[in-house]
């Protein structure tokens, strides 16, 4: 009797755990637009599975040729829900949607992923993904998305999520910083050293004879300043309303174009 009861309780407990534990998308990569090869899909899935296990945050990469008349943000949400994605009751996770209909890309996040993948992180990610998508390097773009999500989520787990007050600096950024600093250093050093060198030779000819102008002898007899014509140039300003580099952010995520 006791044995039967304990078995029943185990079955019930397992059923409860199954229902309340991570729902998670069954497929981590859904390539409806046919942008990825089987090998690439498998690689991305493996990466996502690793991240789910490590961080307890779900990911879905979704490509499509049509948004079915919806806004990409709504489309992303509908896909995320219909695929039953997300870990835990808050459905912690993020989705990357690549739409070939209007060349748009969207990152939406839910649950704890909203804190980990801040608006700064999403905009950063979109800016780094879109060059790959523009060049039709879709696997590289998706891999880049996962790469940065990994970095951002780890930082959030350590209590220091990347945001507007805490920027993520890539190795490329440091290379640019050092390059610019070196250029400034070389220019300053050159100017300083040439100035020191010029002090060594002071025998230079005079350009003019203005040491010999008789005092008060200079007089202007005619001055004319005539306005002749104008040239006007108009240039369109870069769109500042949509965030940095052509991205648009809202409470759920960020959209970009490629």
């Amino acid at each position: 009797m006791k044995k039967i009861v304990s078995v029943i309780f185990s079955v019930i407990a397992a059923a409860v755990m199954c229902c309340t534990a991570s729902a998670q998308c069954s497929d981590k990569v859904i390539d409806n637009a046919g942008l990825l090869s089987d090998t690439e899909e498998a690689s991305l899935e493996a990466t996502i599975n690793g991240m789910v296990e490590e961080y307890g945050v779900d990911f879905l990469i979704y490509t499509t040729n049509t948004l079915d008349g919806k806004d990409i943000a709504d489309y992303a949400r509908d896909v995320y829900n219909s695929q039953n994605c997300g870990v835990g009751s808050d459905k912690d996770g993020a989705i990357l949607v690549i739409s070939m209909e209007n060349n748009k890309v969207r990152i939406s996040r839910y649950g704890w992923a909203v804190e980990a993948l801040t608006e700064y992180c999403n905009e950063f990610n979109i800016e780094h993904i879109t060059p790959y998508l523009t060049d039709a390097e879709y696997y590289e773009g998706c891999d880049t998305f996962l790469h940065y999500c990994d970095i951002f989520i780890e930082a959030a787990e350590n209590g220091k999520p990347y945001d507007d007050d805490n920027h993520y600096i890539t190795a490329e950024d440091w290379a640019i910083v050092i390059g610019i600093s070196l250029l400034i250093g070389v220019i300053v050093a050159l100017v300083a050293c040439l100035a020191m060198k010029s002090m060594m030779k002071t025998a230079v000819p005079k350009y003019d004879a203005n040491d010999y102008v008789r005092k008060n002898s200079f007089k202007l007899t005619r001055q004319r300043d005539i306005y002749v014509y104008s040239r006007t140039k108009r240039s369109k300003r870069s769109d500042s309303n949509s965030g940095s580099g052509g991205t648009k952010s809202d409470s759920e995520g960020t959209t970009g174009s490629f």
Partner: protein
Amino acid sequence: MSVQEFKCPACAAPLKWGSGVQKMKCEYCDNTYDIDTMLEFTAEEAEKPVEEYSWKPYEDIGEVTDGIKSYICKSCGGQITGEETTAATQCPYCDSPVVLDNNVSGMLKPDIVIPFKVDKEAAMKALGNFCLHKPLLPKDFVSENRLQEITGLYVPFWLFDAEADAKIRYEATKTEHWTEGDYDVTRTNYFMVIREGGAAFDFVPVDGSEKMDNAYMEAIEPYDMSEGVEFNMAYLSGFVADKYDISSDDSKPRANERVKAGIEMLMRQTVTGYDSVVAQNTSVKLTEGNISYAMMPVWILSTKYKDKIYRFAMNGQTGKFVGELPVSWGKFWAYFFGITAGVTLIASLIQGFLL
């Protein structure tokens, strides 16, 4: 009746009368112009630049023959003259020995002399001061250089006085920036700027000795001509004088060049309030040009360092000291790389902080 054609100043297309705007109008760039502006603009554009330099020929006031001795350098041909009691032994130009030249009877008497005001000790002290605060000077130069010769020399100069008149036409621009909706707008306004005027130049010096480096002689200017006096043998005592070997005629081009540059600079200083100014047409006329012959005091110093002679000159009236010192290339590159490293580090830290 001939028809005058007007060209658009902006794009050179032909202008037509715009009856709607009552002005001359360009059909290519849509600029419009008042008829008076166009007439003035066209007349000014048609003017060609003119340069006229008029100098009265130099008339000398005789020679000094008594109480002087002339020397010649067998090495470079330099000729110097000294007072009878002053013995010259070394050529101030190449440091070779000089010998008496009995073929020379006298020297051209100068119209003006500026006597030496600064003595030999001051010249030597000036050399020491000149070596201070020179980061690229080889560290052993001060201890190891050997003063070879220090000579008080009267250098011959031709002095040019003139009244200079100029007319200069400039193209000047002013730029405005503003925003209109989604657009950044930049408007550049073009102006024709004309300046006419003149100034008097007194005693513009051009050195009359081929052997004296013009750069050195111009670098130690100016001389205060108010202290110039009539020539007297007494001023020559203890010093030597160089003989001129560049005539006044051959010195005129340099005088013309300096006076022209001078009047151009004076005119340019009156064109203000523009973002850019470019001279397009310059006419200069020099009149009342007078030439006089002068002797100016110069201390010539030469010093030897690592088998190379380094020369210096000091204005014998004002004490202004010029010369050329050796550069330690080791120090140059050490400073270069050190400053590069330091500035790179600071700039990286600042940029990293801003990132």
